[in-house]
């Protein structure tokens, strides 16, 4: 196994261009597991831990440009206000040790449908910044996930950053697992209300071949929601929202849960998320509206 250790971003891009089969590694929390289990023997690894800047975030317009290698611990510490759903998801990732190493870039690179970062990125319409020696391109998260572990990233590209829009309303994240720490989500769900565009964003994890949105549920909630006053939604509307989210999922039966359980749990998470976000909206009304 060849081990490439670029010292700069330019060197890293050049290495990826020359060796498109090389696997980038940052925190190692996914890639190393596959290597240790001998599920995968990459011909080469590109160690990105020495590349400056990947672990940094900065304001970018109204939002935040989050370096692909910022560990979840850093997101929890710094971005609770700027990216509430992502920070909530980051808090729930695995264990303290994994949160100190794992990053959103790794979630995007691996593109497991169970990655905790995906639902918030979908719900908030975040944008993935991809780079190669040919230049930079920006792909909305909503167009990034193409199939099981398949994404819009080309083999010669590295994930540089994620652009997180400024929140314009309440955001929520919830997941179900067999215990709090160290489990892969059975299902997860993120919700973002955007008072500026009067739209609702959703993201579903662990319930399909890729992270998914529930477009029907988004349109329904946006139409039903009282954007002026944030009045509580009728029980029937909340229930319908849950049904629409569950219907958008494409779960399978596996060791973590059955498809039927996943749909049921998703509907519950979606109902709670919407009801709570509506309450957040009323409480924060003076600020958000």
């Amino acid at each position, binding site marked *: *196994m*060849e*081990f490439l*250790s670029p010292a700069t971003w330019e060197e890293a891009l050049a290495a990826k261009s020359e060796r498109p089969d090389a696997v980038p*590694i940052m*925190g*190692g*929390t996914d890639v*190393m*597991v596959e*290597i*240790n*289990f001998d599920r995968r023997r990459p011909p080469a*690894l590109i*160690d990105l*831990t*020495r590349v400056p800047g990947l672990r940094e975030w900065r304001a970018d317009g109204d939002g935040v440009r989050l370096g692909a290698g910022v560990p979840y*611990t850093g997101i929890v510490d710094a971005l609770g206000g700027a990216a509430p759903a992502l920070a909530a998801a980051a808090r729930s990732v*695995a*264990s*303290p*040790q*994994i949160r*100190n*190493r794992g990053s959103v870039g790794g979630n995007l690179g691996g593109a497991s449908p169970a990655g905790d970062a995906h639902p918030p990125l979908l719900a908030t319409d975040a944008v993935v910044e991809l780079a190669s020696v040919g230049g930079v391109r920006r792909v909305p998260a909503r167009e990034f996930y193409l199939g099981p572990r398949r994404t819009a990233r080309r083999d010669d590209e590295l994930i540089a950053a994620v652009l997180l829009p400024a929140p314009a309303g309440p955001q929520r994240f919830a997941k179900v697992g067999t215990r*709090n*720490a*160290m489990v892969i989500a059975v299902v997860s769900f993120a919700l973002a209300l955007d008072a500026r565009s009067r739209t609702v964003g959703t993201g579903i994890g662990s319930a399909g071949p890729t992270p998914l949105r529930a477009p029907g549920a988004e349109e329904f909630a946006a139409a039903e929601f009282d954007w002026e006053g944030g009045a509580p939604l009728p029980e029937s509307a909340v229930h319908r929202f849950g049904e629409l989210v569950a219907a958008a999922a494409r779960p399978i039966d596996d060791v973590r849960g059955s498809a039927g359980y996943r749909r049921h749990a998703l509907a519950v998470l979606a109902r709670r998320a919407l009801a709570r976000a509506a309450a957040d909206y009323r409480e924060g009304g003076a600020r958000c509206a």
Partner: protein
Amino acid sequence: MSEELHEIRLRVNGAEHTATVPARRLLSDCLRQDLGLTGTHVGCEHGVCGACTVRVDGRPTRSCLMFAVSAQGHEITTVEGLAEPDGTLHPVQRAFRECHGLQCGFCTPGFLTVVSAYLEDNPDPTEEEAREAVGGNLCRCTGYQNIVKAVLRAAEIRREEAAAAPGGERAAGAGERR
């Protein structure tokens, strides 16, 4: 065909070490086999059990999910580095002994390294917070009750020592936070 070897320099518990390793050598294996620091235990080798936890620049990290070559340039602290040079045990070690926070001891190095870091950030945790702090470490003997007690006791020892030290309470945690 022989595998390419890398000359690496690691800083572990304040001391410089050198080793010649293939790129695939895990930090956990390097610590144990190349440097002889067998205090770090290897349980599951896929990032679940937490036994191999070491501190990398202060942050608890699973050493089975890191290559030794990637650990260069970082400050590594293993369980061997927790006690004072004169042998005085770290407050977390003393608390685990007092509270019977271990039985077979296999998982203990991971708990000790995690808790030593946790208490620097949260010197006065609640029981619930103490449980969450050790959520990434598995123990098959104790049922965790005494481990949670040991976390709370370690916090108490740290506070007592800080209060007794010149400069009083303010010394607690000061200089430890990175």
